């Protein structure tokens, strides 16, 4: 299945968060387990330029809000949902100037929701540093019925809308924040390859 050198250009690459040395201000946006990535970032050093931090802590199993309050000395916003993060971003982005560096840590869905929210302010996703935390579970876009199914951890997943069995591809839509899902048994109905968890 996984050949050496296999690589799809649209597949996003996530890294660990590291401060940009050259910047005029910084914006850190994290969610759930991503709070740990934000804490690690603040442990590297505290930049000289102003830092704004947004943290969504609705996940009770991964809540780093208390520690973040200790390590983030200023401008920390604790929020209860992704929607709150997005609306606060829309309020603060117009005040920011060129030289702002953006860091996002959280689930894949959260990362791309943030990227989509700041896009209208002229930020390209390639300019955002992204760390994927917690799960590798994928959102799948069904190319047949166009529905998006979240939290798929296996190589083949069932579309939540049309119930087709979809092969989970590496082709990724930045706009939708989802991977392409293609009917796996179209030519031989009911005959499915082995279903394995590969996005734990």
């Amino acid at each position, binding site marked *: 299945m996984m050949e050496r050198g296999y690589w799809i250009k649209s597949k996003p690459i996530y890294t660990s968060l590291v401060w940009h040395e050259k910047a*005029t201000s910084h914006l850190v946006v994290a969610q759930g387990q991503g709070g740990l990535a934000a804490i690690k970032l603040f442990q590297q050093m505290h930049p000289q330029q102003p830092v704004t931090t947004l943290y969504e802590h609705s996940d009770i199993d991964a809540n780093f809000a208390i520690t973040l309050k200790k390590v983030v000395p200023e401008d920390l916003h604790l929020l209860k949902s992704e929607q709150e993060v997005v609306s606060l971003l829309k309020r603060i982005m117009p005040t920011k100037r060129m030289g702002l560096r953006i860091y996002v840590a959280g689930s894949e869905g959260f990362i791309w929701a943030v990227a989509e929210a700041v896009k209208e302010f*002229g930020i390209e996703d390639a300019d955002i540093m992204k760390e994927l935390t917690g799960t590798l579970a994928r959102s799948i876009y069904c190319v047949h019925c166009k529905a998006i199914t979240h939290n798929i951890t296996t190589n083949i997943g069932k579309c939540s809308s049309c119930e087709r069995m979809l092969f989970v591809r590496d082709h990724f839509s930045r706009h939708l924040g989802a991977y392409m899902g293609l009917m796996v048994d179209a030519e031989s109905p009911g005959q499915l390859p082995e279903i394995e968890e590969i996005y734990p």
Partner: protein
Amino acid sequence: MSMINAIVAAVEQVTPLVKHFTFVKEDGSKLPPFSGGSHVVVSMDIGGRVHRNPYSLMGSPEATDAYHISVRKQENSRGGSVFMHEHVTVGMPIKITYPVNLFSLAKKGHKHILIAGGIGITPFMSQIADLNRLGADYEMHYAFRSPEHGAFVEQLKKSCSSRLHCYIDSQGEQLDFKALLGDQPLGTHVYVCGPSSMVTVVLETARNLGWPERHIHNEQFLSPPVGEPFNIQLAKSNIEIQVPADMSMLEAIEAAGVEADYLCRGGVCGRCELQVLETDGAILHNDHFLTDSEKVSCKKIMPCVSRANGKRLLLDL
């Protein structure tokens, strides 16, 4: 490489050092369309030797009846600009390449800061036409030596109106790059074309302020530097060629009758890149294309502007 057969339709002295040339197609038909920031390579036969220099297209990309270029006379050059100034006259046939754009506008940008020094204004002339047509937000910052050297200022005042900012060195006016780039809205792109010292300052300033690389654009065509003569060996053609002091490797290869790829001929586009199979000396990399590590590895060379100083330089050509 296929060329356009053009005729010089007009020559205008714009400043003491700058001439504006208008080209039309020999058969009277329209020229190919292009986008703002494009350039063409003009072929010149100077004493039996072919010179090819890149020049930015200045006209509106929508007006394809004619192409417009401007040439600054460079006294200490290998003769291309002097030839354009002293020998190119109205009615002369001239061969040019199809337009290529290595300095295009970032269409998704929210605002565009254009910075020109001297003759570096030329690529912006066509970009401004595009920006005006798109209704885009932009500022044109134009620095030049003294009032008589400010080419096209009147034309720019009309096309840019209040978006034009001039800085005249002889009147003590300086462009404060840090102040300019230090306070721009998100989504801004900066473009610079001018002397290398200016390009370097703009690139450094933007980078130090934390502008992402994707938002920083520059165009800086180099003319092939004069150097010591050296020899090259072409592996596939199985010949040895001497590169004279005042000729580039690419020109010497072409003069020997070997076909080589090229686009900009100014060390920018990367098209003429050749693989170095063997070398016993240093490669004098003069291009803006190869990365620093590629330059150190000495496995690749851009023959349009780079030279060598060994006895042997075996190329995969």
